[in-house]
């Protein structure tokens, strides 16, 4: 196992970091334009260094596993040494190109979008830090450094989602994202700690380095984790059945819960739809290039652990599939343009986890790549629409924008076709690959395939419902807004066009063999995922059949939806539909937020209120803190009655005492 050493890797996350901090510190003293400019330049520099690193990786001999830079030794504790070191292997290469590439485009787009915002230095500062943390996350050579990036991304997302913090609703959205992510993070840490425990149990040197864990992973396979309380007491008792689970399964499940937090899967997906409270470029950055992909990346990065546990893999696949289905269904009925996109992101992330869960890690990463392109495109396109309509986000108040926003329209349709899976756009190839593996993998099943296929129909439906309502048909825009509709500035449209090209072409990176392609992307990632043996043998006939089904489904979905929403009778049909309880349930997002509020937030706040009132208020404040003084006060008020200042009353008492003494003395006489 050879490692190639480079000294430039640290610059990739460092540049956005330093520039971000500099903008944060000094941005307000220079003209607004310069902070955005510096931020873009930083991302560009980072992109250039990323490309350089990728070329370096490509030029190394075949037996080199990754390019590595050891920055410094972070900590040594017992046998555990944690280096602050960065690596670039094929998986990281894909990720850093996505983060810096799409990140740069979003930064460039933001120049136009944030033009009129006085707070733009703060925005660009946080945006750069966000990108920097994400780069740290994907380049980390061990779990702890990854966790730094993981937490940093969470913190920056909190800042950016709550960017308009003066509106309490948006600040609350930021907090929600932060708190939900914290839940996931706790499980992530637990997973890491359990992994260390497992390594010690297996007699291996403690380490958090991915490469070393991978090398020693085999020894972990047989480790069990006893699941009984008080093992010493329960061991001899016949009543207590010694239960245990595979240690790897437990580690993987804990890590996966962490991933569901970051990547918005069931049950921790609730923060993502609210995350659109931030400026649209932030949504694009969170949904496309950074943050939500962290969970998928982490699962793929640790695939050697996950494949050892069929249970964990099944959980991942089913959670992914169900999330995809559920989010797709909710997406059908949303009226807010960004909310539809948010649910589509959750749905597409579900696809990625489905792919990872059936062992098709390369397919997951490939979908991550194509999704980064078309989701960035769609979000930025939505941003362009919102920008043009002065903040209108309800798709039922749009329509007929095709002529008013020609560039946005064209690029948006490309993105929608891509996500809907219409060939030959990027989404088709990546999604088809996932569908194929969901069916054919040894871990896959027809059930998973069916769910994924239904989700594909749903995807086509909600995307073209949106496209039709926004761009086609007659205009339903408010008259006041109508006069001011305008195409966005060049910095935005150029970005859209660029992303549209990427969304259209990215699929050809991984052209399947049955279409005379070379499956180049799979080949590139092969060194990373080489050990995975769960995928079925290539079956070209099955692949062809499934591909035809996919195309059929996508095309039918797109056509039917478009025809329905363009037909003049759609309003009556919609009205009929909207009164059904199914529609309302979907529109209300199955009341999941309310459910969480009921089972988590309410008890918690009730308990907090109880503690505040009964414990802190009554016990601490009133009894322990104010009790003694109050007691003293009452006693004092009572005793001060004796201190009347009336000399004769004192004399009376004095005489009483004297009389008592005299009587006593007479009695003893």
């Amino acid at each position, binding site marked *: 196992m050879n490692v190639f050493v480079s000294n430039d890797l640290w610059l990739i996350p460092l540049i956005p970091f330093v520039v971000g901090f500099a903008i944060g510190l000094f941005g307000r003293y220079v003209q607004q334009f310069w902070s955005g400019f510096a931020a873009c330049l930083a991302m560009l520099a980072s992109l250039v260094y990323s490309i350089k690193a990728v070329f370096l990786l490509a030029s190394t001999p075949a037996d080199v596993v990754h390019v590595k830079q050891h920055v410094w030794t972070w900590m040594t504790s017992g046998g555990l040494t944690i280096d602050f070191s960065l690596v670039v292997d094929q998986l990281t290469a894909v990720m850093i190109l996505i983060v810096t590439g799409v990140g740069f485009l979003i930064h460039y787009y933001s120049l136009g979008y944030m033009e009129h915002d006085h707070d733009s230095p703060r925005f660009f500062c946080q945006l750069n830090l966000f990108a920097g943390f994400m780069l740290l996350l994907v380049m980390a050579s061990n779990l702890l450094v990854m966790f730094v990036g993981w937490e940093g991304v969470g913190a920056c997302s909190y800042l950016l989602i709550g960017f308009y913090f003066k509106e309490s609703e948006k600040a609350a959205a930021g907090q929600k994202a932060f708190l939900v992510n914290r839940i996931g993070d706790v499980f992530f840490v637990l997973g890491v700690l359990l992994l260390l425990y497992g390594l010690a149990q297996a007699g291996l040197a403690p380490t958090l380095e991915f490469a070393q864990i991978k090398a020693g992973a085999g020894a972990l396979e047989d480790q069990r984790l006893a699941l009984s309380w008080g093992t010493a007491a329960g061991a001899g008792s016949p009543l207590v059945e010694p239960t245990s689970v595979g240690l790897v399964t437990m580690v993987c499940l804990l890590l996966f819960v962490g991933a569901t937090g970051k990547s918005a899967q069931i049950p921790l997906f609730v923060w993502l739809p609210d995350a659109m409270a931030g400026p649209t470029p932030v949504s694009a950055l969170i949904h496309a290039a950074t943050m939500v992909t962290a969970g998928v990346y982490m699962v793929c990065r640790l695939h050697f652990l996950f494949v050892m546990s069929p249970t964990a893999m099944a959980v991942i696949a089913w959670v992914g599939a169900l999330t995809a289905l559920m989010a797709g269904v909710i997406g059908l009925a949303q009226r807010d343009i960004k909310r539809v996109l948010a649910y589509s992101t959750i749905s597409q992330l579900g696809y990625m986890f489905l792919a990872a869960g059936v062992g098709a890690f390369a397919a997951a990463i490939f979908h991550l790549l194509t999704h980064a392109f078309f989701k960035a495109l769609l979000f930025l396109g939505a941003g362009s629409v919102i920008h043009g309509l002065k903040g209108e986000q309800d798709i039922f108040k749009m329509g007929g924008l095709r002529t008013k926003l020609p560039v946005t329209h064209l690029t948006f349709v490309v993105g929608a076709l891509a996500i809907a899976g219409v060939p030959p756009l990027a989404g088709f190839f990546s999604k088809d690959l996932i569908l194929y593996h969901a069916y054919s993998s040894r871990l896959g099943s027809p059930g998973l395939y069916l769910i994924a296929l239904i989700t594909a129909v749903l995807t086509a439906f909600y995307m073209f419902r949106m496209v039709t309502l926004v761009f086609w048909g007659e205009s339903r825009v408010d008259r006041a807004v109508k006069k001011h509709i305008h195409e966005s500035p060049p910095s935005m449209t150029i970005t859209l066009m660029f992303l549209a090209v990427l969304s259209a072409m990215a699929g050809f990176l991984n052209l399947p063999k049955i279409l005379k392609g070379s499956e180049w992307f799979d080949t590139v990632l092969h060194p990373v995922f080489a050990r995975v043996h769960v995928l079925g043998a290539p079956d070209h006939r099955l692949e062809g059949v499934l591909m035809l089904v996919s195309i059929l489904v996508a095309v039918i979905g797109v056509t039917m939806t478009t025809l329905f929403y363009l037909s003049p009778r759609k309003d009556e049909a919609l009205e009929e539909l909207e009164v059904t309880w199914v529609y309302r349930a979907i529109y209300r997002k199955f009341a999941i937020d309310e459910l969480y509020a009921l089972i988590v937030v309410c008890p918690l706040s009730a308990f907090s209120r109880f503690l505040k009132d009964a414990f802190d208020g009554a016990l601490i404040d009133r009894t322990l803190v104010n009790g003694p003084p109050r007691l003293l006060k009452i006693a004092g008020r009572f*005793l*001060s*009655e*004796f*201190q*009347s*200042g*009336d*000399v*004769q009353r004192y*004399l*009376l008492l004095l*005489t009483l005492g004297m009389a008592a003494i005299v009587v006593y003395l007479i009695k003893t006489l």
Partner: protein
Amino acid sequence: MTDTLAQGYLSLSAILFTIGTIGVLARRNVLVVLMSVELILNAANLAFVGFGRLRGGPEAAAIVLFVIVVAAIEAAVGLAIVVALFRGRGTTRLDEINLLRG
């Protein structure tokens, strides 16, 4: 044999002391209170004279002399305080002088 006269002196002393006590405790006028104190002191003097009859000798008379001196001093200082108080507070009523009320 009992000395009826000595017994009478002691009893009268007790009665005078009691009347003085009532005056000190019940009257609100500080001057009357001071006069009552004089009564109490005289009750003590009468008791000393009574004891002198019982024990004999001029010892008791000497003590009475000292008591009279102290009583005169007490009256002088007490009345000076009353005058100062009246200047400051405008009253000689004890229930209106309660500066030390808690």
